[in-house]
């Protein structure tokens, strides 16, 4: 009815109890729990299942978590290589098989254009259709749009620029020096790959999280899982805002991957510089704080290893683990470079590995803070019936990992189901106690009428 404007074919309008936006690991895990609770739902997916894994990652990328850790509600890795690390096509297969097993109601190729509040729920408009629903689960991911500093626009045209999202393989880049900006997992892996491919790489390093791939004979992910670090809850940490903003740890997957830290890169000839902080004419300016950032990361690594060692000791595991070790501090150049003139041709390409932000341009509900982030409490968004899943440290430190979404999805599904039930009771009371209820609301109250086509 609302779209019956002259000259425009009305979109078909459908009703469903819950719309889930996105069919990656988060959306699928939610689908599992909604299905189990008998809650009618649909997953609207802009592309195909696991779209970002399929189309927005570079070719050599492997998961940072070993195969044994790749689990989703009701599914564990059962392949031949539990200690291996999935390639992107393997991740996509893993998710696609999961979607099939669930018979998840995925509407592929359906891009959501807007979500608005409507009477008794939400109106979700896609390119092709309109959905009326009681609740919406945002499972479209945290890594939608690359974040690039404003000075990128002012770089001379002689320098090529690309983001980690657009990078695929070293052959894409013109021969010559590369400045990789950002020292989280992506930045380190790309710096390594490009240096090995023969480019002279300079790596701009700000705040970062240093982690060894293996510790005392076990993968670091085993430690973080077993010692309960991954399970730390959002309401247990001192400053959740800060915990959510932490850069992804310096890790790489691969066939028997080694620790990838700044020392490993320096040893291969990568030049380390501080955070990129300015551009004066054609001269890039790097912060003089490189040593402070490295010292802080070294200290935090030491503190984490102290915690892990103490945990192993109290659990009596020292006998079955290799002895504790400490890693050498990050080695820095004696006189770190504070500026580079792009005019002298030493840098041919700038590769931005400066992080991502979620894309909420379609969300027409006033739930964003002044920084454009969703206001939510552990995934329960600041608007009744609106939920978000799969963001960093949403409810637990592991929330944005594939295996981390299970617990969050279960708890949020419980919350959502309780909220739906409360609404149903209220409407039933309204129907019996007053005459407020008109015939137009009837269809939505009847569970069997959900998911029908009414236009």
């Amino acid at each position: 009815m609302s779209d019956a404007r002259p000259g425009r074919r009305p979109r078909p309008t459908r009703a469903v109890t819950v719309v889930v936006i996105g069919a990656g690991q988060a959306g699928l895990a939610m689908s599992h729990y909604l299905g189990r609770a008998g809650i009618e739902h649909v997953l609207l997916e802009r592309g195909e299942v696991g779209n970002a894994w399929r189309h927005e990652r570079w070719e050599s990328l492997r998961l940072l978590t070993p195969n044994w850790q790749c689990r989703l509600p009701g599914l564990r890795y059962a392949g031949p290589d539990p200690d291996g690390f999935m390639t992107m096509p393997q991740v996509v297969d893993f998710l696609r098989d999961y979607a099939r097993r669930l018979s998840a109601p995925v509407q592929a190729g359906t891009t959501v254009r807007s979500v608005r509040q409507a009477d008794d729920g939400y109106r979700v408009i896609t390119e092709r259709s309109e959905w009326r629903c009681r609740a919406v689960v945002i499972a479209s991911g945290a890594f939608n749009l690359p974040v690039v500093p404003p000075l990128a626009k002012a770089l001379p045209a002689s320098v090529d620029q690309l983001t980690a999202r657009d990078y695929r393989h070293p052959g894409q880049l013109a021969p010559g020096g590369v400045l990789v900006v950002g020292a989280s997992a992506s930045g380190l892996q790309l710096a390594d790959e490009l240096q090995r491919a023969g480019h002279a790489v300079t790596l701009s390093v700000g705040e970062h999280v240093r982690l060894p791939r293996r510790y005392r004979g076990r993968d670091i992910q085993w430690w973080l899982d077993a010692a309960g670090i991954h399970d730390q809850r959002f309401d247990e940490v001192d400053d959740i805002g800060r915990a959510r903003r932490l850069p992804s740890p310096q890790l790489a997957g691969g066939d028997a991957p080694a620790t990838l830290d700044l020392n490993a890169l320096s040893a291969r000839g990568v030049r380390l510089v501080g955070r990129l902080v300015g551009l004066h004419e054609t001269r890039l300016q790097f912060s003089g704080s490189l040593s402070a950032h490295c010292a802080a990361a070294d200290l935090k690594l030491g503190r984490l290893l102290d915690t892990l060692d103490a945990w192993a000791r109290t659990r009596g595991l020292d006998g079955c683990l290799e002895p504790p070790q400490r890693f050498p501090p990050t080695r820095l150049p004696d006189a770190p470079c504070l500026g580079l003139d792009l005019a002298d041709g030493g840098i041919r390409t700038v590769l931005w590995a400066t992080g991502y932000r979620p894309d909420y341009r379609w969300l027409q509900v006033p739930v964003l803070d002044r920084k454009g982030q969703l206001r939510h409490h552990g995934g329960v968004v600041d608007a009744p019936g609106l939920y978000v899943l799969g963001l960093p440290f949403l409810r637990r430190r592991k929330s944005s990992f594939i295996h981390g979404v299970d617990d969050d999805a279960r708890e949020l599904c419980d919350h959502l189901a309780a909220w739906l039930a409360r609404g149903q009771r209220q409407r039933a009371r309204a129907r019996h106690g007053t005459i407020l209820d008109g015939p137009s609301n009837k269809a939505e109250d009847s569970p069997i009428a959900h998911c029908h086509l009414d236009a």
Partner: protein
Amino acid sequence: MQTAIREIDNGVNVTALLGAREALSQAPEAARFTWRASCDWVMGTHSRATVEGFHGLGEEQQHKTRFAFDTDHPEVFASEDHGPTPVEYVLVGLAGCLSAGVAAVAQHRGIQLNSVRARLEGDMDIQGILGMDRDVRNGFDDVRVTFEIDADATREEVEALVAQSQKRSAVYDILTNPTHVSVQVK
């Protein structure tokens, strides 16, 4: 028997600071501060700067007293040495900022400080300011800060205090990152 529990006291009101943080998160515009100094040239390389008012929390603010600072150059620069050189004031600013940060972070983390001493050195090649070599910069080319801290804490905890104070230091940021500066004639 009562067990005496020693209160951690570094003289920093952390509760007030955390309260201010909370209040400012509701009204971020009040977090805009403008700091001011004025300076009168006296004679030769000798000037006298004063600091009194500043703007913050949405209104004009005043220090309890008006502070005055003489700046000059030493006799080896053929000056009369009425005060520290301006670059020494930069070291003073960095020292004060990092030390305040160490105290605040220690208080927040429940670490009692017994003594904190910072020694600062800034290297400079004066061929820059004398205009002798255009490849030499005017300012510091290296600044070193060494803390000696006696606290009821492990070495790692003390190192973490110093790391966190750098992370939250205004002067450290001013020195390590470029800042837009405009100088005009009225």
